[in-house]
C-alpha cells in the first residue's frame, strides 16, 4: 500500500497545488486568485500529511487557510476597486524575469543536491515537536513570539485614526 497509494496521492496533490498556483497568477479576478491560493495551501498541507507531519499539516490548514487567507480576503474586501480588478501592472515584465531567474536557481539546486533516501527516519511525534520548541529551542521561540507581539502592537498603532485616539483620551 505504502508505495502505490502515496505515489498516487503525491501526484494528485502536486497537480492540484501547481494548477492552483497557476490559477493564482492567471485569474483576473482578485477574489478568484485568493480562492486558488487556498486550494494550493490545502495541497501543501496534503504534502505534509504524506511526510507524516500531521501536526504541521494541521497547523498549515489552521494558519494559512483558516487565518491568513481569510485576512487576505478581508483586505481584498476593504480595498476599494481591488476586489473587481486584478489588472496588469508595469511590473509584469520584471516580475517574469525574476521568476525565470528564481526557477533557474531552484532547478539548479534541485539538480545539484545529493538526494538521500532515509530508510528508517525517527517518527517525529507532536510531543517531540513540543519538547523541541519549549526545550531546546525555547529562546528563538520566545524571541519570535515577542517579535510577533511587537508587530501586533505596531499594526494596531499604525491603523488607529486620530478620532479613535481622541475617543480613547476621553474614555
Amino acid at each position, binding site marked *: 500500500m505504502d508505495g502505490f497509494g502515496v505515489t498516487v496521492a503525491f501526484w494528485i496533490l502536486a497537480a492540484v497545488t501547481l494548477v492552483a498556483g497557476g490559477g493564482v497568477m492567471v485569474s483576473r479576478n482578485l477574489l478568484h486568485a485568493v480562492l486558488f491560493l487556498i486550494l494550493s495551501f490545502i495541497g501543501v498541507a496534503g504534502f505534509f500529511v504524506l511526510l507524516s507531519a500531521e501536526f504541521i499539516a494541521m497547523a498549515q490548514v489552521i494558519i494559512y487557510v483558516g487565518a491568513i487567507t481569510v485576512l487576505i480576503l478581508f483586505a481584498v474586501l*476593504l480595498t*476599494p476597486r481591488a476586489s473587481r480588478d486584478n489588472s496588469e501592472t508595469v511590473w509584469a515584465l520584471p516580475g517574469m524575469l525574476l521568476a525565470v531567474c528564481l526557477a533557474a536557481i531552484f532547478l539548479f539546486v534541485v539538480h545539484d543536491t545529493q538526494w538521500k533516501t532515509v530508510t528508517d527516519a525517527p517518527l517525529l511525534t507532536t510531543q517531540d515537536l513540543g519538547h523541541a520548541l519549549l526545550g531546546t529551542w525555547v529562546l528563538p521561540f520566545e524571541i519570535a513570539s515577542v517579535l510577533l507581539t511587537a508587530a501586533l502592537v505596531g499594526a494596531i498603532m*499604525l*491603523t*488607529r*485614526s*486620530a478620532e479613535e485616539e481622541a475617543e480613547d483620551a476621553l474614555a
Partner: protein
Amino acid sequence: MTGVIKSEPFVINIGPQHPSTHGVFRIRATVDGEKVVDAEMVMGYLHRSMEKLAEERTYTQNIPFTDRTDYLSSMSNNLGYCLAAEKLAGIEVPARGDAIRVIMAELQRLASHCMAVGAFANDTGAWQTPVMWCFREREKILDIFEVTSGARLTCNYMRIGGVAFDLRPAFEPMVRKVLADLPPFIEEMEQLLTGNEIFVSRTRGIGVLSPELATNASLSGPMLRGSGIAWDLRKADPYCGYEQYDFDIPIGYQGDSYDRFIVRLEEMRQSVKIIQQALDGLPSGPFRTEVPLALRPQKGEAYARIESPRGELGYYLVSDEGPAPYRFHIRPPSFINLSALKEMTVGGTVADAIVVLGSIDIVVGEIDR
C-alpha cells in the same frame, strides 16, 4: 497619521421588502461600513387614499375605514373618529357607552403593546420567542373582541353616539381572565428581556431622543414619555371619562430604545388597572345614543384627539352640512413619531437602526393611510 483606512460609503435599501420594516416601509440608508451616516425615509407603498375616499361616504360608513388605518388598534381609531364626529354633531354619549369605550380602548392598548413589545424584541434578534408569547396574550384579547364585536382585527365596534352592541354575558369573565393573566405575563417578559444583559446592551443608549427633540418634532405616546416627558392625553385632555380612573403616567430616563420598551410594559400594567376600575364601576343603562343613519352635522369643524397606543391620534372633520364629511384628516401618531427616525439612527450601526425602528412601533397602514 495620513494613511487612515477609509471605506466608501454606500447606499443600502432597508425595505420595502425587509423582515424588520413592519410592513412596506423603506429606509434608504447610506452606510459607511456598518455605520449609518444618512437615513432617508421612503413611504407611500401602502397609500390607499383613505382621506379622500372618506369624503364620499357618510359619517357612519367611514368608521370601517378607520379600522384599516392603524390595523393593530382598530378600537382606538374607531374611538378617535367617533369622538370627532360626536364633537361635530354635538352628540352626548351615555355613561355606559363611555365605560365600554374605555375598556375597549385599553384592551386595544394591551393588544397593541403586546405586538409592539414582541416585535421590538424580535428586532433585537430574540428569535421569535417574545413575539410568540406576546401573540399568545394578544389572542386572548382578540377573542374578547370577537365575542363583543364579531371581528378580531378590524372590529368596527364604536358607533357615533356609543358602541354598536351591548356587552355579551361572556364578556366580563373573559376580561377578568385576561386581567388576571396579564400581570404575570408582564413579569415574565421582564424576566426574559429587561433582565437580559444582551437585550439591555442592545437597547440601552440606542436611538436616544432628547426631550427637546421629542417635543420639537411633536412626538407623542411612548416615544415622548420614554424621553422623560409626562404627557398623556388621558390626563391632559381627558375624554370618555378618563378623569375618573386612577392611573399613572410611566416616563423613561434618557429617552433610549430601552426606556421606550419599559414604558410600554408599564403602560400595560396601568391599562390593566384602568380596565379593572372601569369594569368594577360599569354603569347600567343605554350604551348608545340613537343617531340618524345619515347624519348631517351643522356647518363647522371638529378635532378630537385620543391617546392611542402609539400616541396622539387626532381626527379632524369638516362638515358642509352634507351627509359626508367635507374634509377628513387623520393625525397619525406613527407617521409623526417616525419623523425623528433620522436623528435617532444616524451615527449608529445598521443593527441599531433596526432596533430604533422597532422601538418607534410603526404601523405602515397608519403612516401611508
